[in-house]
């Protein structure tokens, strides 16, 4: 993605921000429907004025300005205080509340869930009340997250640095990265075809390099790649035969039989 100024925002955040800005002026009280937005932070300091520089004179909203002041806090969704719960309902989005009311956790449900989870039941009424409140708050949080509109947003596969600089550093492969490998090739023949130089000493041929059928010919012996191959591969096997792992298919299970390291077994190789 081409940007004129280097920025630390990824594409998803940009899209979300742009959409929000285009939806209207930034007014915390007026945000409908979205549980995340418009919540006044309980712990935020007194002055919570309009955050966005809403005057029409600024054509480009400054991301730094927008992000410098938090608009909500997790605690707004996890309010354990029922009074605060009630207070927030008047200012907050109406959409979230009916959901909480319709399938709120009853004490019976709580007992059922505790039994299913093999957890001990509540010792006292106070503890039970505490468990109920916690559970309700957690569910409110989860529903709020589920209520976010994700149309057009690609599902997250992994948390990665997806900025231009990050992609360039970690994911991009260019000519510079492969110069070393390309230098380990010879240009062979009248056709000027590149051929990889092989470590086992075989000359870079022009034709099919392996012409032997498997199982024939002397087995090659090469140095183990340090740090990668120099560990005891067969140590964790329950059954081995020489240098092979042994697997028993069918009904006779070999997984419980003790490790039986065979001696020099004839390795009659037959490709299946």
């Amino acid at each position, binding site marked *: 993605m081409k940007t004129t100024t280097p920025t630390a925002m990824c594409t998803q955040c940009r899209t979300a921000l742009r959409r929000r800005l285009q939806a209207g002026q930034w007014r915390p009280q007026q945000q409908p429907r979205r549980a995340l937005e418009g919540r006044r932070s309980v712990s935020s300091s007194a002055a919570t004025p309009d955050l966005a520089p809403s005057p029409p004179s600024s054509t480009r909203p400054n991301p730094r300005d927008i992000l410098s002041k938090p608009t909500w806090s997790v605690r707004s969704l996890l309010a354990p205080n029922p009074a605060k719960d009630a207070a927030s309902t008047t200012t907050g989005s109406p959409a979230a509340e009916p959901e909480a009311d319709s399938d709120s956790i009853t004490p019976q449900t709580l007992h059922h869930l505790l039994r299913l989870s093999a957890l001990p039941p509540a010792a006292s009424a106070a503890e039970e009340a505490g468990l109920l409140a916690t559970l309700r708050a957690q569910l409110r949080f989860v529903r709020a997250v589920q209520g976010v509109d994700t149309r057009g947003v690609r599902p997250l*596969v*992994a948390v990665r640095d997806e900025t231009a600089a990050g*992609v360039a550093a*970690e*994911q*991009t*492969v*260019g*000519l510079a*990265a*492969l110069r070393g*490998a*390309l230098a*380990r090739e010879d240009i*062979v*023949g*009248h056709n*000027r*075809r*590149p051929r*990889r130089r092989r*470590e086992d000493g075989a000359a*870079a*041929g*022009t*034709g*099919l*390099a*392996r*012409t*032997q*059928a*498997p*199982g024939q*010919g002397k*087995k*090659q*012996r*090469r140095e*183990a*790649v340090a*740090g*990668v*191959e120099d*560990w005891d*591969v067969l140590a964790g096997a329950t059954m081995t*035969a020489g*240098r*092979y*792992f*042994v*697997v028993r*298919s069918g009904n*006779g299970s*070999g997984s419980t039989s003790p490790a039986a390291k065979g001696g020099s077994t004839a*390795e009659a*190789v*037959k*490709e*299946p």
Partner: protein
Amino acid sequence: MPRIPVVTLSRYLLRGELPHRECLRLSRPLRPTRRPVPGAPSLGLRPLHSESASSASVPASIQTPAHVPLRKQMKDEAKKAKALGKKKKKNASNQVIEGWELTVGIEIHAQLNTARKLFSAAATSFNDDPNTHVAYFDLATPGSMPIFQRETLIPALRAALALNCEVQPRSSFDRKHYFHWDQPSGYQITQYYEPFARDGRIWLQSRDGIAAEDGDGIPVRIKQVQMEQDTAKTMAQAESTHWIDFNRTGLPLIEIITHPDIHHPATAAALVRKVQILLNAVDACVSGMETGGLRADVNVSVRRTDDPNAPLGTRTEIKNLSSFKAVEDAIIAERDRQIAVLDAGGVVESETRGWSIGSTETRRLRGKEGEVDYRYMPDPDLAPLVIQNDLVNHLQESMGQLPDAEVDELVRDFGLTPKDALSLVALDDGRRIEYFWNVIDALSARLGPDCTTRLSCFQLAANWILHELGRLAANPHDDASRDLIFTSDGQCDRVSVDALADILHLLHQRKITAKVAKELLWVVYRGIVPSQYDSIVDAVETENMWFRELSEEEYNELADSAVDGQDGILQQFVNYKQYPQGKLMFLVGRMVRLGPEERIDPKNAEIVMRQALEERYIPALRQDA
């Protein structure tokens, strides 16, 4: 058969006399024996096509019509049947079944030629000691993570570029889940949603061995090329015991998926063969089907040809085909099976089938109910791959000349037939063609820049390198058991480039005859030239083998002597429907036999004889007549 007395027999054979002591209506029918009696000139058994005017054919009355030999009988019957039109037309081609259209799509898995595996830094190997090149990630050891080895992109991109694909700037890796002991992690990392190359094309030509019904050539579109991991090697030992070697786990493979553009079995086999040649030429996959480096799975479906808009029939997949012939045979067998099922009114099920060499029908491996749900998901441990254009451009430019272009160059610049060009390129794994180019260079140096007959000299070189050199090694009388070995840079120990160039140059200049040239080649092969003679020219000089051709008058004298006493043949040249070339060559042969053979060039002798016939002998005959 009762014994006939020798006296009777000899009288009959030598004099044609029937025994008359008995009644003519013999109790034992006397038949002329077919076998020639030893010692007696076979009067009645002379070959019928003899030219001798005094041939005495067996009188017809002696031939008994009762016994007609079997061969004659069958021939007569065949002739009768043909005349009646009842003879069945031999269906030499099994590529097409009337009324049905075959559709084939192919998936090819090829092992990439890399130093390291795809997601671990362990080394690739072919036949090393088992379980010696295994990294933690290859065994799915808990806590191990995949690390994409960037060098594997080089052969992968080259393969995609050789197949004319568009390299996708962004591609990602996905997990394909299924359980098998040769896949320790329970999933194979592949590129299902975003492969690294799409939309390619291969051009198959008639010289690649496609079915005759495909004409001059067809393009086959490539749907995508993707990178994926290989599995472990399993060796079945006893009944239910398997030995596993994890050296091969995690080896980089590319999967090439074609669109269903193929409609004949031979074309499918030709496609797989051509892909193998292409991948080998760009150093992407250097082990072929025979060694297990390349595997093909084919998808086969049939539909009737009467409705062109009908949808494609249900397809079945045939897995694990390991030779080109197996590809063709399996497709033919599966097509026949599907047609039989549909003709009988059944329904073709979408299933996975297998083929073993030598069988006549595919066998079912897995039905629809056994279909695995692979639960494809993007692999969260691997970042998406972003390939930059400079790398792609560099690899495209440095690929060298591809096999098609090479064969085209040979056909265009040297006038070789496509078949000869393909043989030359394929012989000795590509080393013979290198030798050929070296010989061409040597000949160019000898011929000089302003030679007008270069092409014929080069064609002579191509002919010799293709055929004569092969004859040397094939001769069983050679005492030395060393083979004719070519190195990868086109040199040969036994027949050096310079020696062959010398011989060909002398032959081209007609300073030696072809026979002498072949002798010299033999001498070089035996090593006599460097040991006993200094060079080819030296050898020719010493043995006095220069071609001193006869002069024109000498040729004419020889022609005169050859024609002497051959009036019968000369008569055939007087009035003829078609020029009797055979008779001419007979006379030329006579010339060669009568004259000094090593000084005669048969072509010139033929020209002289033809001329002489026209100018002297035939007019002379006409005057006499």
